[in-house]
């Protein structure tokens, strides 16, 4: 073989090796680049890789995304062209951002140059330029938009917080933000106005327990309302009287609202706003006062009118009587008329006095059923025969909060009005029961009071009330009765009275088809003050809790025995050994005495006379005489004592059973007979005065 051939083969082999090495090297660089590329792709960072000729070797997917215009020229673009491209797009005014990034940059060592550019779709990109280990240029692009948005939001918040804060501080109302989660609801923030209201510096206000403060200002109901509102993450609004100064009252309106962060988020804090409304309240009071005075003026005019009538009647008859001094019958007649008139006057005075009282004397709990039925005989006596009168009730007892005389008066006036609406006769129906929530009228205040209401309904089928009149029907001094027939005091007085005890009155009527008055009384959860238990068939079970009896009996042993029996029945017993002692003891006793149980024959003051005197002072008490047959007495009587007709008596000797039964019947009022007897007896005394 020639030398030439050998040289050719060797150079061929060398070439082959070189090619292989080159290919391998290229592969390695590619591999290197690929690893880098993969990393960049995963990180979301855009990468532009240049080769040793400073031409773009590779654009990863993100770089294509950020700089779409690049891809079009990518193969031709040199590094320096690329740098021009970058400078063209450098974002002015992003110094703030750049600075914050610069700081971070300073810490890292990889890149030698950076800037922030805005891409064609408005994105902000950070451009970092560096060199790979192979010495090629590499450009990295990082999307800053998300970061910038956050920074903007933060600065916006900071700015708006500041403005809000200024606004809150400038407000006249006191504003507090409290912790809704802790039981103490301590104050987290308070504005200047609030600090002024409580006259404390901010440091002493923050941390205080809001509720403790409120407790000292609010009444029980208001405090409960606020507490349940806060606990329920509700809003509420109360007017609270903070202080009563010499010539004015300080009222604050307190508004509570929860601070919510969004749907389903836990409420962490609530807002309480305190606004001074003293002036508004003062104006309201003045207005009410002048309205009252006006009504009072009207009332006075009407009363004067009524009294004039009464007086002229009295005067008239007195004058006439003088002419018939020799005619006792006529005189008696005229005197009766004068008596009637003066009784009317007394009744009117009583009504006025009750009307003028600003507060009820006691918050008594009475049984509406019992009270209404008690009035039945009296009312029947003033209703003429052509009026049918029925009373019905849904429950055996209806305890309500109302003074007894108030209810009696209200009821009586309603029935009288009903009667007057039916001059030709008709029917009056009285119904009572527990009111369903749906029954309560729309415009009633405090409808969902705890315990609810009971209703008293008086319905008549008389001439009815037309729409126009119905609106004015409760105005003081409004009356449709003719001159001289009534003051109209009735309905407005009823309205006021009912309102005083926390009740409500409603009227519905159609002209020509009768009227229905409905009064709602607050139901009491307490028992009516006295309870009669047991039945007359089971004597041992009879209990008369809360009832008081006055016993008068001159025989010591018998007195002791009777006292024992009465105490066994559960009654409170006042004992006396003679009539005068009984009189004295009842005068000393402040409470109500329900029953007088008296012996008939006693020295000095006998039982009958005692009963008469006792009845004049305590007309509501029942009376039972011991010993109905004086003839059967021990025999030591010198004057036959006559029991009044219809008197209830218990013949001696009697045992426990008989005593219990007669007292039970007398006090439990289930027995209409008993009531009739009481009335008859009272009437007997009254006419024999």
């Amino acid at each position, binding site marked *: 073989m020639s030398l030439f051939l050998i040289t050719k083969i060797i150079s061929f082999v060398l070439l082959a090796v070189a090619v292989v090495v080159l290919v391998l090297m290229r592969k390695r660089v590619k591999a290197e680049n690929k690893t880098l590329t993969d990393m960049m792709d995963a990180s979301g960072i855009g990468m532009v890789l240049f080769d040793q000729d400073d031409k773009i070797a590779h654009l990863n997917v993100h770089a294509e995304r950020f700089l779409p215009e690049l891809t079009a020229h990518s193969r031709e673009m040199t590094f320096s062209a690329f740098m021009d491209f970058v400078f063209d797009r450098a974002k002015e005014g992003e110094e703030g951002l750049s600075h914050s990034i610069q700081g971070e940059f300073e810490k890292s060592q990889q890149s030698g140059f950076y800037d922030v550019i805005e891409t064609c779709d408005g994105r902000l990109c950070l451009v970092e330029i560096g060199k790979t280990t192979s010495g090629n240029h590499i450009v990295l692009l990082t999307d800053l938009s998300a970061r910038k948005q956050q920074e903007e939001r933060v600065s916006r918040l900071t700015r708006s917080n500041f403005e809000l804060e200024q606004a809150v501080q400038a407000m006249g109302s006191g504003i507090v933000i409290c912790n809704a989660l802790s039981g103490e609801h301590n104050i987290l923030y308070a504005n200047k106005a609030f600090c002024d209201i409580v006259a404390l510096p901010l440091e002493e206000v923050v941390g205080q327990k809001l509720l403790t403060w409120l407790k000292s200002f609010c009444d029980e109901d208001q405090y409960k309302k606020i507490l349940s509102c806060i606990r329920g993450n509700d809003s509420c609004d109360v007017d609270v009287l903070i202080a009563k100064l010499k010539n004015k009252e300080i009222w604050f309106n307190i508004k509570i609202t929860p601070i919510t962060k969004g749907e389903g988020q836990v409420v962490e804090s609530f807002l309480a706003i305190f606004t001074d409304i003293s002036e508004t309240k003062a104006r309201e009071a003045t207005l009410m006062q002048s309205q009252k005075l006006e009504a009072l003026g009207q009332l006075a005019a009407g009363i004067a009118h009524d009294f004039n009538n009464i007086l002229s009647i009295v005067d008239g008859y007195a004058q006439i009587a003088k002419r018939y001094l020799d005619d006792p019958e006529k005189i008696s007649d005229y005197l009766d008329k004068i008596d009637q008139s003066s009784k009317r006057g007394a009744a009117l005075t009583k009504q006025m006095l009750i009307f003028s009282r600003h507060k009820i*004397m006691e918050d008594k709990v009475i049984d509406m059923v019992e009270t209404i039925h008690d009035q039945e005989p009296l009312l029947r006596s003033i209703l003429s025969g052509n009026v049918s009168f029925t009373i019905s009730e849904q429950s055996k007892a209806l305890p309500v909060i109302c003074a007894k005389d108030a209810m009696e008066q209200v009821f009586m006036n309603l029935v009288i009005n009903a009667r007057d609406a039916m001059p030709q006769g008709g029917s009056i129906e009285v119904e009572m029961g527990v009111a369903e929530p749906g029954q309560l009228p729309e415009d009633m205040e405090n409808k969902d009071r705890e315990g609810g209401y009971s209703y008293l309904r008086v319905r008549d089928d008389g001439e009815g009330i037309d729409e126009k009149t119905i609106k004015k029907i409760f105005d003081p001094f409004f009356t449709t009765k003719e001159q001289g027939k009534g003051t109209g005091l009735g309905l407005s007085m009823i309205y006021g009275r009912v309102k005083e005890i926390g009740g409500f009155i409603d009227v519905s009527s159609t002209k020509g088809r009768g009227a229905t008055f409905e009064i709602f009384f607050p139901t009491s959860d307490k028992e009516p003050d006295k309870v009669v238990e047991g039945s007359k068939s089971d004597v041992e079970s009879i209990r008369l809790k809360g009832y008081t009896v006055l016993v008068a009996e001159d025989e010591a042993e018998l007195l002791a025995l009777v006292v024992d029996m009465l105490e066994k029945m559960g009654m409170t017993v006042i004992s006396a050994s003679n009539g*005068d002692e009984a*009189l*004295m003891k009842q*005068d000393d006793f402040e409470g109500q005495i329900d029953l007088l149980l008296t012996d008939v024959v006693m020295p000095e003051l006998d039982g009958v006379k005692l009963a008469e*005197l006792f009845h004049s*002072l305590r007309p509501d008490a029942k009376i039972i005489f011991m010993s109905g047959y004086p003839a059967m007495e021990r025999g030591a009587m010198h004057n036959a004592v006559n029991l009044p007709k219809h008197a209830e008596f218990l013949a001696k000797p009697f045992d426990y059973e008989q005593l219990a039964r007669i007292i039970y019947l007398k006090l439990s009022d289930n027995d209409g007979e008993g009531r009739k007897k009481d009335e008859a007896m009272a009437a007997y005394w009254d006419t024999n005065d």
Partner: protein
Amino acid sequence: MTDKVSEITDLKVLLVEDQAEARAMMRNMLAELGITQIFESKDGREALEFVDSAFDFIDLIVCDWNMPNMSGVEFLRQLRTVDPNMPFLMVTGRSDIDSVAEAKASGVTAYIRKPFSPVQLEAKLRIILQRMAA
């Protein structure tokens, strides 16, 4: 006070009332109950002078609550400074509890509310008799 009084009819009464008609009516009512020994006075000042000079001529003072010049309570209070025991019946027209409480606190023996019937008056007088005896 005179010697022990055992009956209502024995009572010697000083009536203090400013209105003539009311005085007359009171006089009649007392007369109905058999009381005839009645002295009358138009106002508290006059009554005080009377009591001062003639205290052992009267058993009981019946006095109206509501009088001009000197009210019933005032009269009572002044009376009590010189005579803590003189039986005193206050005639009150008011129906509220406060007046009654005030009357009791000032030392009335008993009170009676207008309008009242002769029977009620009789009952009250009997009670006063009892208290006097005690």
